[in-house]
């Protein structure tokens, strides 16, 4: 019933009542009663006008609104009367709810939120798969993209963009790098997404033709940060990796690109990729996979219709662009591939794939912590409502129903939790910023758009109400069961009733113990897993190594001079004071770069398929010394292994085991994949090096082959130097800068510490270990506070009883035992329940574990041990106080 109708009905009721009174008064006057006496008599006969109003309102069903408002006002006053208790409750709720909201807003920003573009629900991402069982792959070559762009009719519009996660352009012209995040996109990128320009103009199809000049669109944020939002930015020239690009416009604020977790600074058209490589290989090569494709669905079309149309189109689109340098059977398999579309409104995200599962687990962890905190507040409420027994009895005597009272008490609790939630939102903002900084690494700066959207607010509100009800319901029900006479008398209730009042507190604490035990087990698992991971023998020494990346391409060094330039730099670096050893390589350990090939030996029965996959690195002679990787047999590289020398390699132990089981591999040959018309070169093995990790510390060691960097055929525009120093690696940077600058001032240099690089690769595990440890400890603390409070309460309640026992000659130790028996009871219940819960639920964590089974008995036992010790101590303190209490004082207290 709307407020307007309500007002009208109330007015009508007033009129009706007034009319009745007038008629009654008139009747009396007609009978001969005086006018004013008549009016009074009529009113008297009528009865209580206000009551009529209220009863009628009740029938209309509006009373609940009045009552609710009254509840809130009354609850506010009551809470104000105990400011300390209220403050403590609100603060703990704020922390608990804040933590939950922080994690949820992270999950929302990474997993749930749709891109801030026009009608994101219409966007579909295109992928390709072989057979129906294969996982669809999202990456395409440029020829495929052009085919799709020109000949598809399934989408209303399609666009493509580069799928690098490290698409960065150096803005500086030589010297230390100044990176801008870049995206390479097709001409209709902005048009299909429905993004508008904030200044200048955005790409059109014209801007994306082969042979195009370099144009660029800036992001709004970059325009503000770098150019101060000046209008002169449009039309100015930007240097990207030492190539000039003209800025033609700025995209609208709030658009951060297709990649959730990153924000772009610059967008350039696909055709301009040719500018960087001086040829069109990336645009024409049919086996360079680097573009993602997405499109907008036609209105009225369903996903099934789209996919069936794509299935029909696939052969037509793929046949013209089959990679001709593949083996015949691979080519046949290629044209049979099928294009599929899946919802793409949430964009693509590396951050999502990395952190979705850890975040979900953390959501569960903070949820449990909140429940444990609620249990403490429930105990607080129980104690407080015991003190309010008199007030409740009076209200009951005045006619309040039990339901009404319970509603009143619950309203107070929801008020508390709402206040906590409001404060928690502030904590959440701070917490989620902290979390983002935690998961950002030097290579991957994470950027997320945290908006206080409906989902997050709705979540917080729901949690506030649920929390309030959760910790309020038990005390509310308990306290309204008050016996009127006993409460009015104001004395202590009987012993049996007291004992009964204590039982729920026991259950509450036992459940706290159980839940925090689960969290302790989880924390223990993550911490041990992380410790094992950091202790893994990586096969190289990660400390005190500075990594230097030099890009000769950007410095416009001619390709013929690459080797000479690199050698000159390496010599200078080796000569620097404080340098123990130096080397250079194509890729560094545990970075995201990899190069692999299927390898064959002369032995016909060798491994095939996945087992033949070998990972390559191209290194200089000094590499192994710089990283302290021991060469077990044979020799390292030397001057003889030059560009023109015999093709040689040093392989690792795993490769030897896999390809040369019993034989001595030194002197044997292997080769890569033969291409039609281009057989692979034979490479001779000259040494064996100890196993080391290539891509991640978690990997099962790959078969690896190290080849001389002088014999690398391509990809040597940028190389990495590894410098082992005696001092802090970062202290060496100025000297390195000078050394490189001495060879060529234009070379852009990027620095990184190897130890940091390895640590960054463990960011996911570190996050889980740190946060689960923190929250596990917090949960333990909360449970112990609950236990201490409960035992304290028990001791206080039974003070008189203890006094009597002592007076009757009981030994203090007996009192102690009485109390501890209760404590033990709670602990045993809680720990048993906790162990069962933990054993049942940790299975889900198995995938995240390293070197550890999820149901690891040792961890569970350790957690139980910690819990038992701390809990024993928490219960011991009040028990000791009971034991020491003076019996006379206790008796007198009654």
């Amino acid at each position: 019933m709307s407020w307007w109708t309500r007002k009208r009905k109330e007015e009508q009721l007033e009129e009706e009542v007034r009319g009745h009174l007038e008629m009654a008064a008139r009747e009396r006057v007609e009978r001969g009663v005086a006018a004013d006496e008549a009016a009074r008599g009529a009113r008297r006969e009528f009865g209580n006008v206000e009551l009529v109003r209220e009863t009628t309102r009740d029938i209309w069903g509006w009373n609940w609104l009045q009552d609710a408002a009254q509840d809130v006002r009354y609850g506010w006053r009551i809470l104000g009367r105990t400011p300390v208790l209220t403050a403590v409750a609100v603060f703990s709720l704020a922390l608990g709810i804040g933590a939950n909201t922080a994690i949820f807003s992270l999950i929302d920003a990474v997993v749930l939120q749709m891109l801030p573009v026009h009608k994101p629900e219409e966007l579909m991402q295109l992928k390709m798969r072989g057979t129906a069982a294969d996982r669809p792959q999202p990456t395409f070559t440029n020829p495929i993209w052009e085919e799709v762009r020109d000949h598809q009719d399934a989408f209303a519009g399609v666009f493509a963009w580069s799928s690098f996660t490290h698409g960065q352009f150096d803005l500086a012209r030589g010297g230390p790098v100044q990176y801008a995040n870049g995206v390479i996109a097709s001409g209709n990128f902005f048009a299909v997404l429905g993004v508008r320009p904030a200044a200048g103009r955005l790409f059109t199809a014209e801007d994306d033709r082969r042979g195009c000049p370099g144009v660029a669109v800036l992001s709004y944020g970059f325009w503000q940060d770098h150019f101060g939002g000046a209008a002169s930015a449009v039309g100015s020239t930007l240097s990207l990796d030492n190539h000039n690009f003209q800025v033609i416009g700025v995209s609208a604020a709030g658009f951060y690109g297709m990649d959730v977790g990153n924000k772009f600074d610059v967008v350039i058209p696909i055709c301009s990729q040719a500018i960087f490589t001086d040829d069109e290989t990336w645009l024409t090569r049919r086996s360079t996979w680097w573009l993602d494709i997405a499109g907008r669905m036609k209105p009225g079309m369903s996903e099934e219709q789209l996919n069936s149309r794509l299935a029909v189109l696939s052969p037509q689109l793929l046949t013209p662009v089959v990679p001709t340098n593949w083996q015949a059977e691979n080519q046949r398999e290629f044209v049979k591939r099928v294009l599929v579309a899946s919802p793409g409104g949430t964009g693509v995200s590396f951050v999502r794939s990395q952190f979705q599962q850890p975040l979900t687990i953390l959501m569960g962890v903070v949820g449990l912590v909140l429940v444990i905190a609620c249990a403490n507040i429930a105990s607080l409420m129980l104690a407080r409502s015991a003190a309010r027994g008199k007030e409740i009895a009076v209200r009951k005597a005045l006619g309040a129903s039990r339901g009404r009272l319970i509603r009143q008490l619950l309203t107070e609790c929801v008020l508390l939790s709402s206040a906590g939630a409001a404060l928690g939102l502030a904590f959440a903002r701070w917490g989620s910023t902290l979390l983002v900084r935690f998961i950002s690494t030097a290579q991957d700066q994470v950027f997320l758009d945290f908006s206080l959207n409906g989902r997050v607010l709705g979540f917080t509100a729901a949690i506030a109400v649920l929390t309030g009800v959760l910790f309020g319901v038990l005390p509310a029900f308990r306290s309204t069961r008050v016996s009127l006479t006993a409460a009015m008398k104001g004395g202590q209730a009987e012993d049996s009733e007291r004992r009964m009042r204590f039982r729920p507190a026991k259950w509450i604490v036992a459940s706290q113990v159980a839940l925090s035990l689960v969290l302790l087990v989880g924390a223990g698992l993550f911490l041990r897993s992380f410790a094992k991971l950091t202790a893994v023998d990586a096969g190289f020494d990660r400390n005190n190594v500075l990594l230097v990346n030099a890009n000769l391409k950007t410095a416009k060094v001619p390709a013929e001079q690459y080797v000479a330039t690199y050698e000159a730099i390496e010599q200078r670096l080796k000569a620097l004071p404080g340098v123990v050893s130096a080397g250079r390589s194509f890729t560094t350990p545990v970075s995201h770069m990899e190069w692999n090939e299927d390898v064959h030996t002369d032995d016909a029965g060798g491994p095939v398929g996945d087992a033949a996959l070998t990972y390559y690195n191209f290194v200089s002679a000094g590499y192994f010394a710089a990283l302290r990787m021991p060469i077990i047999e044979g020799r390292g590289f030397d001057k003889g292994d030059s560009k023109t020398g015999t093709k040689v390699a040093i392989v690792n132990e795993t490769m030897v085991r896999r390809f040369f089981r019993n034989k001595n591999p030194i002197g044997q040959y292997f080769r890569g994949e033969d291409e039609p018309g281009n057989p692979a070169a034979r490479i001779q093995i000259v040494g064996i090096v100890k196993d080391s990790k290539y891509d991640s510390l978690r990997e099962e060691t790959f078969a690896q082959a190290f080849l001389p960097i002088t014999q690398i055929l391509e990809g040597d525009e940028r190389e990495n130097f590894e410098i082992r120093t005696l001092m802090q690696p970062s202290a060496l940077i100025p000297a390195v800068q000078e050394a490189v600058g001495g060879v060529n001032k234009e070379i852009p240099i990027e620095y990184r510490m190897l130890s940091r690089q390895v640590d960054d690769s463990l960011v996911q595990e570190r996050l889980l270990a740190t946060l689960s440890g923190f929250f596990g400890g917090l949960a333990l603390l909360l449970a112990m506070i609950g236990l201490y409070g409960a035992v304290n309460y028990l001791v206080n309640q039974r003070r008189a009883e203890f006094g009597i026992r002592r007076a009757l000659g009981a030994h203090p130790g007996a009192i102690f035992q009485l109390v501890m028996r209760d404590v033990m009871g709670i602990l045993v219940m809680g720990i048993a329940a906790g162990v069962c819960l933990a054993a049942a639920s940790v299975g889900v964590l198995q995938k995240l574990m390293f070197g550890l089974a999820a149901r690891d008995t040792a961890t569970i036992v350790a957690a139980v041990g910690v819990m038992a010790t701390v809990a024993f101590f928490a219960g011991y303190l009040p028990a000791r106080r009971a034991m020491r209490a003076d019996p006379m004082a206790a008796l007198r207290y009654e």
Partner: protein
Amino acid sequence: MKEMKERYQNRIELLQGTLDLLILQTLQWGMQHGYGISVAIRARSGEILQVDTGSLYPALHRLEKQKWIAAEWKTSDNNQRAKYYRLTARGKKQLARELSRWEQLQGAIAGVLKVE
């Protein structure tokens, strides 16, 4: 609330359903406003049943909510605006039901009180 209502109905203990019955019956003889209904009940019961208006209006609105009576504002004989109630078709059916129940109840009580 329930306890408080009972206290005001202390003149003659009328079960809630009985008041409804009386009102419905009264309205069977034509439209009437609240005051008129209370006067009619008083008169026809020989001044015994003086309906407490504290119960009358809530009952009227309850019956209106159940759609057994319908209301409209009319000008009375004395040129005064008043809310008139009339019986609806559903109300007539409900009246019949209540009457038969009342007779059943009467018979039952009489049976118990019979002194033989």
